[in-house]
């Protein structure tokens, strides 16, 4: 895509009506950590969504309770617009909260978090509209809603039913806040690049170059053949590990590198997204490649569950 839409450049608002981007992030993290969530860091491998972070994808599997909050910059190459679209981003920032098991008052807790960032629920229309979430590359799905604030989708709210093709028990709830658009809303700006990141810096000052350059790379410069080759190499490596895990025994099995195999799977997923944005994949091939990534993801999930179960049994003295 080479055409562009003119972006009106606007001066930063002199007086903030809402939270700065970073205050929004800090406030929500503070809100959830004070409700027993671990504060985690964004995953340091390219991901398309916070769900792909092992802190969600793998943690929701198995019986152990867990609560976590983290920000996750999420890269979607096909959504890049060279920084010229006021609300579409190659990389947007999600705030991800996972509560396992899902508490009974989770909707109230969530609404409380909106109050914490200054949204008066009696002056705005906040509603839960059906939106069932599914990630075919991860073999994951759940039922829930998109949460709308005055017609703007601000959060994906999902009761997980499956991850990596495994039925989940207990059920986790995942809250995915779209931080960029919430910030724009709170600050009353139409263009995400005009959002005040801090008191002095705009979102555009912090991120615009990144949007421009990655859009250019993903749409124009990425070498399809090289990208495909990387995909193939990493896929083989991941598959090799996952196959080897099946034969591992004892201590070797307990510390077998499944997490690295999952990392490789994530890299494949990202490379697939780059190829897709580059327009290098036919529709048939597309379905096949999604299938290849899903195969790695579901194998990693099953191996992870098996490994954790084995360790727990070992610790409890159950002979293996």
């Amino acid at each position, binding site marked *: 895509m080479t*055409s562009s839409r003119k972006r009106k450049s606007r001066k930063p608002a002199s007086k903030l009506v809402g939270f700065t981007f970073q205050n929004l992030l800090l406030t929500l993290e503070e809100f959830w950590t004070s409700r027993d969530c671990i504060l985690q860091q964004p995953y340091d491998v390219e991901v398309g969504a916070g769900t792909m972070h092992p802190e969600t994808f793998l943690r929701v599997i198995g019986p152990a309770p867990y609560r976590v909050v983290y920000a996750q910059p999420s890269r979607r190459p096909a959504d890049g617009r060279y920084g010229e679209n006021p609300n579409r981003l190659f990389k947007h920032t999600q705030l991800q909260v996972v509560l396992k098991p899902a508490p009974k008052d989770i909707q109230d807790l969530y609404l409380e978090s909106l109050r914490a960032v200054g949204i008066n629920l009696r002056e705005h*229309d906040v509603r839960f*509209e059906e939106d069932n979430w599914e990630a075919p590359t991860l073999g994951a799905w759940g039922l829930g809603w998109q949460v709308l604030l*005055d017609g703007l989708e601000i959060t994906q709210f999902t009761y997980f039913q499956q991850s990596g093709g495994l039925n989940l028990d207990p059920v986790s709830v995942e809250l995915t806040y779209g931080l960029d658009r919430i910030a724009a809303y709170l600050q009353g700006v139409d263009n995400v690049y005009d959002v005040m990141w801090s008191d002095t810096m705009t979102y555009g000052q912090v991120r615009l170059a990144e949007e421009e350059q990655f859009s250019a790379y993903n749409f124009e410069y990425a070498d399809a053949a090289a990208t495909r080759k990387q995909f193939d190499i990493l896929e083989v490596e991941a598959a090799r590990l996952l196959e080897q895990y099946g034969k591992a025994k004892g201590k070797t099995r307990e510390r077998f590198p499944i997490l690295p195999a999952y990392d490789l799977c994530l890299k494949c997923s990202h490379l697939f997204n780059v190829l897709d944005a580059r327009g290098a994949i036919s529709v048939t091939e597309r379905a096949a490649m999604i299938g290849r990534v899903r195969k790695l993801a579901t194998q990693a999930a099953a191996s992870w569950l098996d490994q954790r179960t084995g360790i727990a049994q070992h610790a409890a003295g159950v002979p293996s």
Partner: protein
Amino acid sequence: MRGRENLKGDFILEIGCEEIPAGMIAKSSRELKAILEKYFSSNRLFDEGDAGGSIETFGAPRRLVAVARNVRAKQDDVTRETMGPPKSVAFDSVGAPTRAAQSFAEKQGIRVSELSIVSTPKGEFVSATQVVKGRPAEKVLAEILPQTIQEISWPRSMYWTGAQGPRFIRPIRWIVAVLDGKIVPFSFAGVRSGNQTEGHRFFGKSKLRIADSRDYQAKLKKNFVLCRPETRRAKIEAEIHRLTTRKRLHAHADTELLNLVTDLNEYPTVIMGNFDLGFLALPEEILITVMRDHQKYFAVEDRSGELAPHFLAVINLPSDAKGLIRAGHERVLRARFADAQFFWETDQECKLGEYLPKLAAVTYERRLGSYRDKVERMRSLARWLAEQWFSAGVREADVAGSDRAAELAKCDLVTGMVGEFPELQGVVGGLYARAQGESEDIAWAVYDHYQPLGLEDPLPRNLTGCAVSFADKLDSLVACFAVGAVPTGSSDPFALRRAALGIVKIIIEEKLPLSLSAAISAAAKGLRDHAPEIETPEAVERQVMEFVLERARFVLRDKHGFAYDEINAAFGAGADNLVDAMDRVAAVKAIRNTRNFAPLAAAFKRIRNILEKSAGKGDRSQGAARPELLRESAEKELFEAARRIGEKVGQQKKTRHYREALETISLLRPAIDLFFDKILVMVEEEEIRRNRIALLGSLLREFSTIADFSELAVEERG
């Protein structure tokens, strides 16, 4: 404790739930009613007859509610009689009970001395009579209700208390179950029933104590929940009316959207917002789709029906006093419109036709290749159709135009606009085509070519659109049948039933002269030419023909009100030309109950039976009867009448005066009646027998070319 047996009470059940998807509320409340009615009646909680109780159900996003009136406080005692072994087996010759009597009594839980004897037409049997004590309604309900909740079906349900836990559409958070002021105690998914409900999330109170159904509705209303959909709908309609009329505007009528917003809000309030006049330069179709499908807003029109720069949003709270919500919606809509405008401009940086090569990357079906391939097949078929119509005298059939429209029809699939708004496929292509200087005719053809989408959906507005639509659909049918992607039961991923329906509607409603089998052959030829690797045997053509005719029968029955036997009769004489077949169906319907015709139909059925029987014996009915072998006057008369009448019918048929032709045929009746009265067909003399069979055979053949009368169900009349 009010335990008096004749007492009747009111019962209320509320399943308090996290937000139920709006589209499912109406259906699930109907289902809740049916399930409760089943259990209330099988458990005798209602009196029988008109004075019995009633159940009413309704729902809102966070609740499904059932109200039952005149519920018995207690079931009646019932006497149950169970038949046992025959008396002769149960008692011995001296009248002492046998082992059989003892074990039967034991099984029924009564003493042998309590057994009685009943006489039946089959003899005397032992019988056990037991009185089953009626139980208090409260106890019965406590058992029924968890089962009831579990039985409500959902398109996709979830578990939340654990993988083994119950399933529902979303987590259940509270349950109200109150009978005559008292809680009916049970639990479901870890939630204990009680008598407290929840008001509006932000404006109502929590834990509202409920006495009965009237109290329930009043308290909820005070707490900003309108629990009945009709109340919510009326509020929305009144507010839309109030907001629009004072500006001399009106809302774009949309029942489906009205139903949706009615069930999306517990306390709906309508607000009006505005958008930039400049966006009105975008086509109305796109503006409305953005507002309706993406934002659930009603579009607003001025008095001349043109879109006005306003929208109506339905919010879930009593008011937007500070205008913050309106401002928010306006901002969201601005961004959406800006996106649409972006696509409108960038998509048109190249011409619609230039997207054609990109269709090679869009798979239609794995074995059938891409949309690029499909477009080529559509083009040749659309040309062929237009040629057929033109040479049959349909002047406006445009061969070159149909070809061009088919070439452009699928191009919008790879535009940014359809990527963003897939529901606008076809429409977007049509809009671009027009904006880029294609003729009106071609632009509308592209725009409309997915139509008709159902029995009541209109056809493409011009013949070129009909040609493209027809070509698209027939190609789908033949191609999918060729690779075995045939609809089964409820699964029809390529919407082939709809495609066949569309073809039938186009032919019938446009009255297009066309041989269906020739069209199918042309489509099959197109597939063989363009995809030689796919085998397309003639059997496929016959399958498609049968499939389309099945839809044709359906259309004639459900849309045009013909009876199945009228259709079978006319189709029995051929249905390759559907317009002609439909004329014949109409003629049959018009004449079937006239004085002479009904008996004639019976006579034809008789002839067919005779011929079938004689064929079984080796007598063939082909060939004409030889006049010199006709002996009796009755058979000579029939021969003569058939000749005379046949001549006239032939002329009437040629001019397609089917009704008149059928009336003429019915003049055969006296001669046929006389024949059957006087003549024995199956005589010993072979030559005579065969000649009579030949006479009947030629009669049946000659007079069944309009309709096969023997297919008509004949009413047995005296």
